[in-house]
């Protein structure tokens, strides 16, 4: 669970790096070529399988964990828990379901379209490329799409701000010197990832 979670955390950084190409480059072909490379390269194909495995593992463990935890308290308290704790931790499964819904929609929009057709194509230098860059720009001109996207990342942020540092505790990695650093990194990483992914629709929308 924790290892799969940390793996997904590194994946998000790579994904963010690629996406930022859309707003940092004026030439849309930079992003299209990067996306093309990611969907055709053999080594990346291997990573793709590992990535799906990572998601699957994380989700399966999450479901088992959550089911056991709900079963461990068959009768709930009348006056609910007032203990002072991490608020994000209490909502992990709920933020997870929102993120999962978003991921499925996201796969329909990009992954399946690139595999089974439906994405716009352009011809550059005798080779066909999916024109994801202009697709992204078209979508992010729609306010409802921007809001949906931003909301999904805020919930991902809630998931990460607890998950990042929790994974280290689960792995037994804590001590007086590094734990405060990890707690700080957890916040910095979350702000960076949520901010980075959110900047893309905002920049395009207000362009």
């Amino acid at each position, binding site marked *: 669970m924790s290892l799969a979670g940390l793996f997904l955390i590194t994946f998000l950084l790579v994904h963010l790096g690629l996406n930022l190409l859309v707003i940092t480059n004026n030439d849309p072909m930079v992003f299209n070529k990067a996306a093309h490379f990611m969907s055709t390269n053999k080594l990346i194909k291997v990573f793709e399988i590992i990535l799906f495995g990572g998601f699957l593992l994380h989700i399966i463990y999450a479901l088992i*964990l959550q089911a*056991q*935890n709900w*079963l*461990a*308290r*068959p*009768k*709930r*308290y*009348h*006056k*609910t*828990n*007032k*203990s*002072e*704790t*991490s608020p994000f*931790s*209490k909502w*992990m499964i709920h933020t997870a379901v929102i993120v999962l819904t978003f991921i499925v929609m996201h796969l329909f929009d990009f992954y399946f379209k690139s595999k089974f057709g439906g994405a716009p194509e352009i011809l550059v230098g005798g080779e066909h490329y999916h024109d994801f860059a202009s697709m992204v720009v078209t979508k992010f001109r729609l306010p409802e799409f921007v809001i949906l996207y931003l909301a999904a990342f805020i919930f991902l942020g809630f998931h990460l701000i*607890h998950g990042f*540092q*929790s994974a*280290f*505790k*689960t*792995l*037994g*990695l*804590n001590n007086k010197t590094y*734990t405060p650093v990890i707690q700080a990194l957890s916040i910095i990483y979350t702000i960076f990832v949520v901010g980075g992914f959110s900047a893309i629709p905002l920049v395009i929308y207000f362009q």
Partner: protein
Amino acid sequence: MKLILKIWRQNSASERGRFVDYSLSDISPESSFLEMLDILNEKLIMEGEEPVVFDHDCREGICGTCGMYINGRPHGPDELITACQLHMRKFSDGDTIVIEPWRARAFPVIKDLTVDRSALDRIIEDGGYISVNTGNAPDANSIPVNKEHADLAMDAAVCIGCGACVAACKNASAMLFVSAKVSHLALLPQGRIEARERVHKLVARMDALGFGNCTNTGACEAECPKGIKLTNIARLNREYYRSRIF
């Protein structure tokens, strides 16, 4: 003080329970929470009703028997105390106080507010001790112990097995309790010898008894009357992986 008490009444684990409202007046703000319940029970007995069953023993905050969930918090609205050390001055005149038993699958209700917490003893039985007789206290310096470890071990050893951590946890997990027991023995040379088997057996038993899993939420640490730290849970995880891998 005038109070309205909303108390969970349940005859046995197999029967359904329900809340019953009681009103009390003339309660001194200086009386303890359990004294307040004693006054209620005397009144109930005089009226020919069944008194409310609740667990208590030392009434000094050291035995861990007096578990109850008061207004949404184990041991009620104060830090680092058990319910017997809670005083009515923490409440205001006219308050409604909701009192429930610890709720966890591993802690079935015996009657009213008393639950069967022996699941914690079952965990200890599986290795929460040192198997050899160590005799009288040895000379203080015959076994060198590093000061930092000695302090951490003693901090973990103050766990009184009250179960507030399980009661507070959204997953009804006993990780804080188990981590305290594992830590206080694993940090000292005498306990180190059996550390590997111990952590393994204790965790296996905890899982088998139907406690939930730890998600590092920290409600246990916030509610533990003895201030057991969450860092013990990370140590338990570390000990557990070490016992599996090396």
